[in-house]
């Protein structure tokens, strides 16, 4: 095996840098194997082969065999796939070094093992003397090892695969209001609503019922309160299952309204039914696969609102034809 002097020098410098590290261990002679004549580098494995390492060492330092004999040196090489170990016994003391090499670069292993053997048998003071002048050419000090790469940021948790449940139950509160227009007084009403969407697809059925307790209103001279029970039946269009989801409900609206005057001499209470439509846009954020708070906006339209009247004023106006509102609640997927 031919080892070029530049590569060998680099291996020398690298092994020199490693030589003082704790990974290099020296033991006593307790487990010194018996020496035998012949090659002084032994071992198993093909990367590197003991013969290549011995040849490389003797090529660089031809009289190394004298030191081998004098110091009763034995070297064992062990190929351990991504590592290889070099054990050296010299004067009854064991030196051991394990090198990492994921790439299994066998030439490099030969160079590194040979340099480690030379430096161990003949320490740098000897190697860098006259005989080893070629190796001891003044060289720039080795660059400091590069700083360890920064810790990569922790990998984000993989997004769970969201699915749409067969039924979604939503319980929430909402506020609805209407300005004083189109013959209706100003209303602001707060209520609660239970809604169920059925179907796992992107178009599902939806049904809801709500309750809005009595809230006051005032026509020009007549004051009163109104209690509402809205019910809807319609379709839900929604986006693909995700952590953040949107849904649009388009529903027919059935309103039960009870109106009661509060400042008339002879006050009456009437309950009426109104029909219309409602659109609700919801945005939800899944906390878990089944639980998601939501917010939404809603608009209701009653095309034929009821006329409201009293004596002696006559017609006061009508119930609101348009309601706008906002909703907040919690969705439970079943």
């Amino acid at each position: 095996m031919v080892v070029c002097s530049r590569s060998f020098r680099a291996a020398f410098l690298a092994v020199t840098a490693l030589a003082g590290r704790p990974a290099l261990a020296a033991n006593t002679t307790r487990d010194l194997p018996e020496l035998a004549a012949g090659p002084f580098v032994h071992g198993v494995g093909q990367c590197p082969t003991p013969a290549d390492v011995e040849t490389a060492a003797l090529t660089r330092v031809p009289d190394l065999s004298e030191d081998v004999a004098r110091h009763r040196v034995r070297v064992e090489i062990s190929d351990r796939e991504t590592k290889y170990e070099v054990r050296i016994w010299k004067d009854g003391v064991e030196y051991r070094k394990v090198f990492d090499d994921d790439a299994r670069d066998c030439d490099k292993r030969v160079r590194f093992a040979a340099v480690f053997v030379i430096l161990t048998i003949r320490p740098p003071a000897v190697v860098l003397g006259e005989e080893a002048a070629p190796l001891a050419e003044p060289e720039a000090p080795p660059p400091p090892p590069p700083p360890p790469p920064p810790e990569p940021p922790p990998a984000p948790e993989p997004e769970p695969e969201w699915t749409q449940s067969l039924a979604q139950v939503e319980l929430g509160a909402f506020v609805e209001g209407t300005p004083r227009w189109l013959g209706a007084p100003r209303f602001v009403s707060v209520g609660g609503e239970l809604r169920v969407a059925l179907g796992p697809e992107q178009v599902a059925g939806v049904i809801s019922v709500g309750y809005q307790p009595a809230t006051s209103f005032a026509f020009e001279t007549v004051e009163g309160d109104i209690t509402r029970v809205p019910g809807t039946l319609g379709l839900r269009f929604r986006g693909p299952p995700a952590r953040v989801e949107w849904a649009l409900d388009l529903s027919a609206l059935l309103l039960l309204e009870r109106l009661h005057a509060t400042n008339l001499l002879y006050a009456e209470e009437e309950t009426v039914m109104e029909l219309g439509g409602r659109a609700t846009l919801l945005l939800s954020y899944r906390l878990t696969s089944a639980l998601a708070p939501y917010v939404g906006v809603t608009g209701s339209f009653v095309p034929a609102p009821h006329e409201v009247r009293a004596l002696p004023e006559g017609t006061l106006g009508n119930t609101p034809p348009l309601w706008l509102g906002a909703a907040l609640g919690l969705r439970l997927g079943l």
Partner: protein
Amino acid sequence: MQRSALALLALVGTLGCGSPIDLGSDVIWSAQHESGDLEEWRSGESGGVTGDTDGAVALSTDYPHRGRYSVKLTSASMGEDGPTLFHELVADRAFYSAWYYLPEAYDTASYWTVQQFESRTSDGDGVSAGLDLRMRTLPGGEVVLYMFHHEPEYLQSPLADPPPYVPVGRWFQIESEFVARTDATGSLRVWLDGELVYAIEDRPTVKSETVHFACSSVALDFASTPVELFVDDVAISRTRVTPDGVLAFD
């Protein structure tokens, strides 16, 4: 399919376009005369008719305001006992509305009382004169409305400027907000066809808490008789009736 759609539309119409919502009423009492008699005035002990001699107070279909009937007050002679319809109640503050119709402009030299705010005397046997709304003829032939208070320190109020002319040949509404007080906190405001024409305040307006409200045709000096004055849709209400107000829903 078509039949189903029509049925659905009919259902929507029934539910969504149903009858109006009636919230109630502020009308304390009213006389619309559509029953064809004067029961609304005479029922109970709180009202009645006086000066009804020779058919001076009669239901008529000649000039109904709304509906079929109105009351025709005929003054066949002159005097302080002309035909009068009255209703009594205890009301600290109320609006008194009545519609009148003058078929022609009658000449009267002094006064023609068409509405009175009096009070039951404390012993309950009589009526104390209070405030009158009266009409009289101006030299140019116009008929004006003015106010007269029977208390000596008040008597006749100045004629409003511009003068509140009473129309002839069409119905007009006189509505008053009468605050009945025995102390100097009473008041009377008068609207003619919705226009405020008189307002007096800070004076006693009654002798007792029972208000004696009357619609009448009482005059001392008509140029000629008989004089006919039609009255209809009389109401006492907690809120203003206004010319657009209604006393009953169909």
